[in-house]
């Protein structure tokens, strides 16, 4: 299935939840609203014509314009086609629906995105920091992050 076909059937099924698509990009992508991400993900995984059963990568993003985002790289081991999904949310209310019930691999990827970018995945079963210590402050991959001079009162030399 081409990206255009995926976009048309998503648009037909979910209407306003599918915002836009960039089909002439190097790897075409489709933008979805964060509140309905799980529905879209379930459809993409289970629809017989799609069967995107393999989530290659899930990346958190800071677009540096007041928006955070999540990028999903999907692949189907049955039909061997790929698609890129994106969601965007405001930095002040960074809520995205979790897809860890759809693809098990998303669990840790979402924890990583939460850890490094502060994106909150609603309905995630275990949203804790994964790479950084539990008492770390701030989200290092945000573009406005300042490297702290002290960690727990100890000066960090460079």
């Amino acid at each position, binding site marked *: 299935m081409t990206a255009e076909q995926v976009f048309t059937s998503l648009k037909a099924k979910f209407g306003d939840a599918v915002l836009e698509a960039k089909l002439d990009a190097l790897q075409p992508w489709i933008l979805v609203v964060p509140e309905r991400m799980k529905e879209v993900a379930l459809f993409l995984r289970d629809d017989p014509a799609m069967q995107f059963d*393999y989530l*290659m990568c899930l990346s958190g993003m800071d677009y540096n314009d007041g928006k955070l985002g999540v990028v999903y790289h999907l692949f189907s*081991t049955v039909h061997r086609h790929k698609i890129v999904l994106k969601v965007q949310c405001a930095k002040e209310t960074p809520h995205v629906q979790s897809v860890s019930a759809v693809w098990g691999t998303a669990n840790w990827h979402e924890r990583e995105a939460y850890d490094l970018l502060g994106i909150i995945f609603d309905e995630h079963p275990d949203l804790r920091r994964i*790479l950084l210590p539990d008492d770390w402050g701030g989200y290092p991959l945000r573009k406005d992050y300042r490297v702290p001079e002290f960690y727990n009162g100890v000066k960090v030399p460079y």
Partner: protein
Amino acid sequence: MNGSKTLLTSYVSQPGEIKTSSGKTLRTDEMIINMGPQHPSTHGVLRLEIVVDGEIIVDVIPHIGYLHRCFEKHAEHMTNYQQVIPYADRMDYVAAMNMEQGYAVAMERMLKIEVPERVEYIRVIMAELQRIASHLVAVGTFGIDAGAFTPFLYAFHDRERILDLFEMTCGARLLYNYVWVGGLSHDLPPQFIDKAKEFCKYYRPRIKEFNDLLTYNEIFVKRTANVGVLPKDVAINYACSGPMLRASGVNWDLRRDDPYSVYDRFEWEPQVGKGEMGTVGDTWDRHIVRMREIEQSVNIIEQALAGIPEGNVQAAIPKRIRPERGEIYARTEAPRGEIGYYIVSDGSTTPFRVKARSPAFVNLSVLPEISRGAMLADLVLIAAGVDIVLGEVDR
């Protein structure tokens, strides 16, 4: 008398009081055992929080991040795209060549660079030598975890010979900075081809020797067969890759199925687990897939050495890398599986965002699924069968 009694009871926790770090309440007959971060069988600094009922594992909660350096933050702070490569090396420090190659492939696709054929051939040779070296670490330490020390020495002895070849080529034994975007840092030294051919000739019989010593050893088979079975659908749902996915019976190899470089010119076969000693997708299958992949890699190296063309390995290296605005996700087959780089460019000379999808990070996330219900002593083997390198799990 009365006072000491209250003191005693105050230390006894009430049912429902103790919780695991993921918030699950412990039953009264369960307890938590911590394995690591300084445990020899965790292959680095990994902490496993294990909930056991007697000797049966109820749940495993991996705690990672002890080696976290935030590769992705480093990558954003470089002055150009080539400078990311030494950092990519340091992610998977036992398979640095494959890490570099993945990044180079992603950047070349983004910049639409055609790489000279000689470069592709040398990259294939290096990637496959590195795959052998990395698998040797995996199967050698796997033997140690099963209580067999001798095979480890055999494996590391052979690995040294591969590291000698790398040292001869670029001066480094572990972290090479050899594969650059568009080319290589050095051409092959004149005696390399003969030495590499000599190595292949020497190494082929050693594979059988190693198999006799470890793989088909009765005790080893009994320890690993039917242990930590990973079914096919779970493997795909958790996006496992590499030997982990193939051992579960999925015939899938990115070198063939998402082609890059010149792998289509050689004759070789992806190896799939068949459940010869137990169930498809058990720990023994993961081991035998690695052993058979080593053999296939020797095949590829021999063919590549025979057909290597002449050329200038630095001809296609761009003077200044400044991709257009855009993004790419490219994946290649590292010894542990799919190493993917998601690179976003904002049109400047430094990456806006680099996300590395490291195979061991993803493979490790399935560990709780495959260890529930297993014996505590088997967890060491299950974890070793996943073949984690913590540098890459934590990045």
